[in-house]
């Protein structure tokens, strides 16, 4: 088996001058930093939450494969000092499914945007959930296609402005968490960049969960979504998240009327179901056994 060597970090990081001890540096390809995300882009906050969650688990970087698609969010794999796959638009979960089936012992994690996972990659998402394959997916949901300069996505709120909805979107958005749950995912949670501490906890639980786990992480794109939707900067967008997110437990005690324009955050769903790679191993063993006994029906 060829061994993959991780990219060696190169260059000065800027931390040398501060005298501070850098956090999370061991997980970063520091030669690639600073990252290309715009000032205040929420993707960096979610990347940080993911790394802190991973760090808490103490898992081995070399036993972990991180897969992304295409988009600003999907650029995340370029910064992470893991074995990473930066794949084609929408196909992160297809590649990840292949990796996981080839070597089920690896931790396989998908990090990608709402456009990537819910539009072009929507079918991969529902089928990965249906199979309950042990992959953790974190959707960096900024409600827009950031990389290609602001087209609307299947989760852009009705009425929101995008370059492709110059008079406001008339589409009804997906509730991605409901979608994944209905498709068969067994761990579903939502968090926001503002509520980064609880988001980190949700990601940690999703990573530990056996089966298909999905975390919708609300991000902010000040450059394309915010600027055109009366949220003028990253701080305004984070405060919007603060005002509109309600913890799912607190919501049970609230008047449905007050919840109408709110977004539920927290662990939304958890269940158990047969995991795909285990089922695959089982059926393979069954067939081998039959072949050994000579009664394999062709």
């Amino acid at each position, binding site marked *: 088996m060829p061994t993959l060597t991780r990219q060696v970090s190169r260059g000065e990081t800027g931390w040398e001058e501060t005298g501070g001890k850098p956090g999370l540096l061991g997980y970063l390809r520091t030669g690639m930093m600073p990252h290309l995300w715009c*000032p205040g882009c929420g993707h960096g906050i979610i990347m940080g939450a993911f790394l802190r969650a991973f760090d808490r688990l103490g898992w081995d970087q070399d036993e972990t494969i991180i897969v992304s698609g295409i988009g600003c969010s999907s650029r995340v794999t370029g910064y992470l000092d893991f074995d990473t796959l930066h794949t084609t638009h929408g196909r992160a979960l297809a590649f990840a499914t292949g990796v996981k089936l080839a070597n089920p012992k690896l931790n396989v994690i998908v990090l990608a945007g709402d456009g990537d996972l819910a539009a072009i990659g929507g079918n991969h998402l529902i089928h990965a959930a249906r199979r309950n394959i042990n992959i953790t997916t974190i959707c960096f949901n900024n409600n827009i296609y950031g990389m290609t300069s602001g087209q609307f996505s299947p989760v852009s709120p009705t009425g929101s402005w995008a370059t492709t909805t110059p008079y406001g979107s008339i589409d009804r958005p997906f509730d991605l968490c409901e979608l994944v749950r209905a498709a068969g995912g067994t761990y579903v949670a939502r968090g926001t960049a503002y509520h980064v501490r609880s988001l980190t906890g949700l990601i940690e639980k999703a990573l530990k969960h056996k089966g298909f786990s999905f975390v919708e992480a609300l991000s902010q794109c000040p450059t394309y979504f915010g600027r055109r939707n009366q949220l003028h900067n*990253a701080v305004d967008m984070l405060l919007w998240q603060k005002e509109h997110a309600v913890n799912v437990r607190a919501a049970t005690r609230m008047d449905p009327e007050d919840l109408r324009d709110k977004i539920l955050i927290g662990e939304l769903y958890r269940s158990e179901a047969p995991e795909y790679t285990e089922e695959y191993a089982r059926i393979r063993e069954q067939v081998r056994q039959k072949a050994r006994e000579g009664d394999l029906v062709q």
Partner: protein
Amino acid sequence: MAQVKKKQGKVPGIFINRRWCKRCGICVELCPKKVFTTDTLGNPVVKRPESCVWCELCELRCPDLALKLEGE
């Protein structure tokens, strides 16, 4: 959200990596204790470290991983 609690009268060292910081203003605006201010170029500057309650929110919310709190 965890309770904002002061760790027994201690304050952390607050370090900002100028090469990574993009001056988004998140630490400055969202610090509950208004520990930061900005210089004329918009760079965050630690102005009132003694007010810090070590909630870590600035470090956790920094999109550029450019801010680090340190101390026991």
